[in-house]
């Protein structure tokens, strides 16, 4: 949209020099079309309703007691959390956008497992504090022995039964062994010492626990947290009371985590603050009464542990967003320091203070469109548009004859500009052509043609006043220009207000309408007027050929007399 604005100023000045304006619009067109090929976006990005796919609209709900909960920060946090969730499913090209001040639109193209998407998006995110049992690099462990050692992990299994109990030394040893799994000796000892223990497990349930723990270790070994892969979030579906494996949200580490000990709801609030003494960003958090007791217990215990068990993991939707080390028992408030930037500190604070999604959402609409129906609708829209253009062209040709050539050329220029801009705006600002936008574009044909009619009628009026074509073209222009600008401004105002205020589908429509109105101004100023000036110099138009649409005789031109005396009896009675 920058290009059109650039052009307008010079256009007004270049009135008498049609060549310059035409050169300018030619450059703009070449640039836009060239940009289209250069960026490889040869056609507009299609919206869900045309390309097929699922679109879910989530609306934030007002909750009692939280009157100002729906604000920009909370919505931004919610968008980023939902985005993480949707893309965590391995759905490519899914987009999550805020729309209006309380809606989040999730668009999942090509109907990729819309069921799962709905579930994922719809459920409330979960935040837990879990003790860290083991940490390892992101890649799957190359050897299996580690998994063999797993039965000894039963202590961690036990701890699931009694969440508050601290992991035993044995458990720690094993997990440490696991961590060093690639080193053959450590693995060997672990495997050797642990194997016999399994059957001897004292508790009746132990075999079950052991099996679970074995599964856990196997899972851990196989877990691939490397980003870029379709990693699932194993911890996402894990019960909070059971240990689980998890990836860090950056994908650079993986963890075995104990059962959740503090829940997101136990956090009262968190803030990102710049510590003036150390000059670094930290995150402070406060707990509720219940939460501070729990937190005191966990930190008291963890601070006694060696690495890496002196960490607790902040797990959001099954991903470890942060795993801070604990140095001492902490009470109702705590601070987390690390290599935070302002951004990352704020993000963590947001995650902590809102538990999960900062707001409650409900699905206000779900649309799933098969590509077949979307294609059909697009086709119908295109047919309708083609018929609309054909009707307008026929009307213009019949009524304006030769002049219609200028109008049709202008419509074509307008079409090229609209199409290339729409294609470019896809990658640039995420513009997607949906059905209402197609409607807007079709309706805009009328708006664009209106401008020509205003100008042509003005020229004809001037000819009727007895002017020859060349002065008529120039004299008609300032007046037509004002009318076009004023009425286009009103149209643009309507589109702009609609775009800013409304939500959902209305926005696509308003955007297209606003864009085409702007383009209309550009085309009329930089193309229609200059071309008119040039053609006025030709014999066909300049001498008012009967087919030019500017034949003075047909237009009923009169010798230039004073208007009031022009009432003559000659024409009048015929008509009456």
């Amino acid at each position, binding site marked *: 949209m920058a290009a059109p604005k650039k052009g307008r100023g010079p256009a007004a000045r270049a009135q008498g020099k049609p060549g310059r304006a035409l050169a300018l619009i030619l450059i703009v067109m070449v640039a836009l079309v060239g940009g289209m090929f250069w960026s490889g976006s040869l056609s507009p990005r299609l919206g869900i309703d045309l390309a097929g796919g699922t679109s879910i609209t989530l609306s934030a709900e007002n909750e009692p007691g939280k009157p100002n909960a729906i604000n920009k920060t909370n919505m931004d946090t919610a968008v980023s959390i939902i985005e993480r969730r949707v893309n965590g499913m391995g759905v490519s090209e899914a987009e999550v956008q805020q729309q209006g001040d309380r809606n989040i639109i999730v668009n999942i193209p090509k*109907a990729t497992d819309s069921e799962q998407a709905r579930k994922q998006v719809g459920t409330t995110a979960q935040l837990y504090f879990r003790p860290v049992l083991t940490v390892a690099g992101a890649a799957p462990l190359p050897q299996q022995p580690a998994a063999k050692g797993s039965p000894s992990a039963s202590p961690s299994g036990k701890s699931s039964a009694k969440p508050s109990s601290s992991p035993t030394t044995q458990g720690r040893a094993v997990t440490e062994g696991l961590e060093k799994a690639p080193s053959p000796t450590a693995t060997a000892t672990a495997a050797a010492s642990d194997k016999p223990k399994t059957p001897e497990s004292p508790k009746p349930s132990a075999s079950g626990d052991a099996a679970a723990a074995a599964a856990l270790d196997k899972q851990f070994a196989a877990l691939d947290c490397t980003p870029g892969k379709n990693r699932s979030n194993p911890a996402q579906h894990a019960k909070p009371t059971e240990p689980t494996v998890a990836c860090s949200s950056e994908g650079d580490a993986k963890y075995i985590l104990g059962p959740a000990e503090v829940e997101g709801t136990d956090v009262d609030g968190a803030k990102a603050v710049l510590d003036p003494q150390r000059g670094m960003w930290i995150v402070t958090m406060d707990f509720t009464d219940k939460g501070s007791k729990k937190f005191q217990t966990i930190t008291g215990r963890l601070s006694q542990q060696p690495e890496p068990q002196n960490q607790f993991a902040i797990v959001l939707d099954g991903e470890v967003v942060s795993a801070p080390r604990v140095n001492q028992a902490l009470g109702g408030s705590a601070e987390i320091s690390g290599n935070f930037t302002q951004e990352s500190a704020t993000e963590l604070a947001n995650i902590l203070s809102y538990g999960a999604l900062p707001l409650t959402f409900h699905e206000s609409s779900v649309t799933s469109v098969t590509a077949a*129906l979307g294609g059909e609708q697009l086709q119908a829209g295109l047919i309708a548009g083609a*018929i609309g253009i054909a009707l307008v062209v026929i009307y213009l040709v019949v009524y304006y004859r030769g002049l219609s050539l200028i109008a049709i050329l202008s419509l074509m220029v307008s079409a090229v500009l609209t199409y290339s801009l729409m294609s470019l705006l896809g990658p640039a600002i995420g513009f997607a052509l949906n059905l209402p936008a197609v409607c807007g574009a079709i309706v805009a044909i*009328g708006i664009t043609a209106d401008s020509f009619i205003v100008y042509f*009628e003005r020229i004809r009026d001037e000819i009727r006043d007895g002017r020859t074509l060349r002065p008529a073209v120039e004299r008609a222009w300032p007046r037509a220009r004002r009318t076009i600008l004023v009425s286009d401004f009103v149209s643009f*105002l309507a589109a702009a207000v609609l775009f800013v205020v409304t939500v959902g589908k*209305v926005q696509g429509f308003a955007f297209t309408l606003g864009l085409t109105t702007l383009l209309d101004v550009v085309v009329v100023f930089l193309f229609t007027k200059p071309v008119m000036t040039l053609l006025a110099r030709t014999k066909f138009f300049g001498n008012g050929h009967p087919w030019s649409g500017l034949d003075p005789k047909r*237009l009923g031109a009169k010798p230039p007399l004073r208007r009031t005396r022009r009432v003559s009896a000659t024409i*009048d009675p015929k008509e*009456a």
Partner: protein
Amino acid sequence: MSRLGNIGARLYRGEVGYDFVGKRKFWYGISILITITAALGLAIQGLNFGIEFKGGAVFTTPKTSVSVAHVQEAAERVSGHDAIVQKLGNGGLRIQVSGLDTKKANAVKTDLAAGLNVPEQEINADLVGPSWGEQIANKAWTGLGIFMVLVVIYLAIAFEWRMAIAALIALVHDLTITVGVYALVGFEVTPGTVIGLLTILGYSLYDTVVVFDSLKESSKDITKQTRWTYSEVANRSINATLVRSINTTAVALMPVAGLLFIGGGFLGAGMLNDISLSLFVGLAAGAYSSIFIATPLVADLKELDPQMKALKKRVLAKRAAADAKGEPETGFAAEDAESLDMEHEDVAAVVGQRRSGARGRGKRR
């Protein structure tokens, strides 16, 4: 065509013309009648809100041979709610179930797929919670309010406050008519309708602005002459821009008609149809109001201005004097006498025409 061109020329010169301003009371009456009808229709019939406002689901199936009645029965049995089933142009079905919430809708979809013997993925589902349409409508009202305030400010600056008020009244008038038509005919109101309705805002004003622009120009030095009153100049402006107004409206209606009859008809009811239907009704209403309501209102408001009152007195006095001197025509004299009365402004019907006898049969468009 030349004939049409000629009419354009003569309209431009005011040789022929329809006395829009003079007969404005008749048109006001018509508009008031339409508005009352619309209001009554709205009060008695109410609007037929689509599922987007009531909450529910629309399923679109691929081509199927199962009968409409059968599907309707099945859909109602499965969902426990009322269902409307329509056959689409492509042989598919459009099944609309109201009152269904987004959670239950999936089960219904599965059942429908089994009943119709089509794969579930090929059924499109549009599930809407009851508050969604309300939200869209609320936003639309906000947008409408903001737009009206901005446009009044803009028109008051670009033209003058009287024109701004007249344009606003015409706009409200168009919206009322459009909504009234929806109530009376019982067309379904969907978000698409709301989009269309909001677009009328811009369009309805387009024609009005074109006429006002011409009026502003021709009334620039109006107080410096004693030939015509403001109302007459206003009427002249309408007639001079009549061809333009008709052309712009026709050209605007054509693509919309294409959308409505071809695009919409192809797919049965749908977004295309909803938008284009309200646009079609609104555009027609907008063209009518810019000619018959907006400009006459400006003339009415303007004639309240002391300057214009004085002008009118001078014009009429001069005319009376000229008539007394020249060949007084009976008809004209009578009209003139009447028009001296400030309450009745039925002065010469067509501006620029002295012999009102001949003018009376101005051409209607």
